């Protein structure tokens, strides 16, 4: 069974099942409201696929993916606002600008009037920001907690910047009240279904891309960089390049997810892109299993579903529950829920070993009890700081 799942046909079958579940079963079973909710969760899952690559495979604790999610989202939101203004207002100026600003569209909004520029920018802007940032950070060998703090600070700064721009980004209210999406009426249920379907297809594509990367030579190299960054250098590779490429891919996935989030949810505000959502992205990935292909997606989906159902029943309790879950998973199951089957089989094995060997023998400790964390300590001496 497991060999079939790993074969080419097994993988195709897996994708087919996923496609049927997402594109046929879910729309048939769920109400319009719940389908939109699932669409929102799928956007989080797309971000999670990228985090799974960057963090799970590449060891980069990306605590600031909200930035890239926000860039994609705001670019899309600006386009929708401008398009609505031309379609329905006639003036071509988004409503909130007349309320809070001079009533004129700022110059840097103008390019996003064009649908083509918008779609390109959704991919290119997060990608370029990640490229510049990645090169600056990884070439200087900033890593581990320092990288995490830096990316988190960036998310905080981004949110603060957005809040301060009341007249051009809607401030803490954000951008909302979209009525059309590239000419389609957003109130029409069939268009909502279309948006959901786009998100689902993008998720499947992101998964396919992530799978290809994980199983390629690049994926093997990425794991090598994660586990022994200094050693990779002595083989003639520059780890900074490998990490930057991965970081850019994760950023592009987050940007596209953000752009899909806007028409599906109908609002983007600094509260969706700051520190707390950035951490929330990560929690799902950690719980699901960061180093696996499906772990991040399933983790992100289940955390989002749990949040929606639990937060409505116990609104103040959810945050504590989320934090507790995070601590428990990181502390006791660093591989996430995806490692559960392996842990169980290892426990079984250990039990049978105990029974078969004499009681006098020392307890057997598996060499790789924590496969993803135990090996991150490099045996190669760190380069002397200059």
């Amino acid at each position, binding site marked *: 069974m497991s060999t079939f799942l790993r074969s080419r046909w097994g993988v195709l079958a897996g994708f087919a099942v996923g496609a049927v579940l997402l594109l046929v079963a879910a729309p048939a079973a769920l109400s319009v409201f719940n389908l939109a909710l699932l669409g929102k969760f799928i956007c989080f899952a797309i971000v999670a696929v990228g985090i799974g690559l960057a963090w799970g495979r590449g060891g980069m604790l990306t605590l600031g993916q909200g930035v890239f999610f926000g860039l994609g989202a705001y670019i899309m939101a600006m386009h929708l606002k401008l398009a609505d203004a031309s379609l329905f207002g006639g003036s071509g100026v988004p409503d909130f600008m007349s309320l809070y600003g001079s009533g004129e569209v700022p110059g840097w909004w103008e390019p996003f009037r064009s649908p083509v520029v918008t779609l390109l920018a959704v991919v290119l802007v997060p990608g370029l920001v990640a490229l510049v940032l990645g090169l600056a950070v990884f070439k200087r060998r900033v890593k581990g907690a320092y990288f995490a703090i830096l990316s988190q600070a960036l998310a905080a700064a981004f949110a603060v910047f957005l809040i301060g721009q009341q007249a051009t980004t809607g401030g803490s209210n954000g951008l909302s009240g979209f009525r059309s999406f590239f000419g389609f009426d957003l109130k029409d249920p069939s268009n909502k279904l279309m948006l959901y379907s786009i998100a689902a297809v993008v998720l499947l594509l992101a998964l396919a891309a992530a799978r*290809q*990367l994980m*199983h*390629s*030579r*690049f994926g*093997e*190299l990425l*794991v*090598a960089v994660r*586990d*022994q960054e200094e*050693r*990779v*250098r*002595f*083989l*003639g*590779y*520059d780890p900074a390049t490998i990490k930057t490429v991965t970081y850019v891919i994760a950023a592009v996935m987050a940007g596209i997810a953000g752009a899909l989030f806007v028409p599906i949810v109908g609002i983007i505000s600094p509260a969706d892109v700051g520190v707390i959502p950035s951490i929330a992205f990560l929690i799902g990935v950690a719980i699901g299993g960061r180093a696996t292909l499906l772990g991040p997606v399933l983790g992100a989906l289940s955390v989002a579903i749990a949040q929606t159902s639990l937060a409505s029943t116990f609104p103040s309790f959810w945050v504590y529950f989320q934090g507790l879950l995070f601590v428990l998973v990181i502390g006791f199951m660093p591989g996430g829920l995806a490692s559960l089957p392996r842990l169980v089989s290892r426990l079984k094995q250990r039990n049978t070993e105990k029974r078969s060997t004499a009681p006098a023998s020392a307890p057997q400790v598996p*060499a*790789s009890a924590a*496969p993803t964390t135990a*090996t991150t300590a*490099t*045996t*190669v*001496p760190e*380069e*002397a700081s*200059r």
Partner: protein
Amino acid sequence: MTTPTLLPDGEPRAGGLRHGRPKYLEVRGLTVAFDGFVAVDNVNLDVVQGDLRFLIGPNGAGKTTIIDAITGLVPATGSVNHTGTEILGRKVHKIARLGVGRTFQTASVFENLSVLQNLDIAAGPGRKARELLRRRKGVDAAVQEALEIIGLERAADKQAGTLAHGQKQWLEIGMLLVQNSEVLLLDEPIAGMSQDERDETGQLLRRIAASRITLVIEHDMDFVREFATSVTVLAAGKVLSEGSVAQVQADKKVQDVYLGTAGMEGH
């Protein structure tokens, strides 16, 4: 890459190859200082292709620091010339690409990857992006040959983390081979090995050193006597003596340095 030639015929010998234009590593005035403490002091060292040079000396003599300096891990002054190319001052990965490879006292293989994946990565810095994004299909000829040379064909699909200590060191040496390193800098490759593993490692070194520039740091004098073709003795960051094992052992200065310690004649 029609017929991989990781292992041409021949045995290493003192002074290296006597025909053609042998490659060389020429170290001149190499000095490494940490906050005023001079760990390596104006060291000159020549190793020619085909020589199996051992670098010995008491603890703290600066042996590992010399390798660290050559491979760009610690900043140093002076000159390190690899067959006409100055390598000192370049970045670590650039030096590696110029054909200078090293191992570490603690075997540092990629524990979560298989033996085959470890070797494949080592063989790959020259690969193009398109190749990198594809799945590995089959086994490179050089990788296959290296697997045979280091005797790990049967363990090719094992996770490197599960290998025995000696096998990890052999894997590291195999990685140097597929990396196409012309200069091999091995830091105590037999530390912690059983006697059988030591013998096999010694044979392996003799086979690969015939066509490479090889510098091995070692403490075990029996091993040095058995396998070295030439020896450099280091003490307090300076070169104390150089020559064949017999010459070095007869050197009064060397005997003085080793007096009271385990000793050159010990073991």
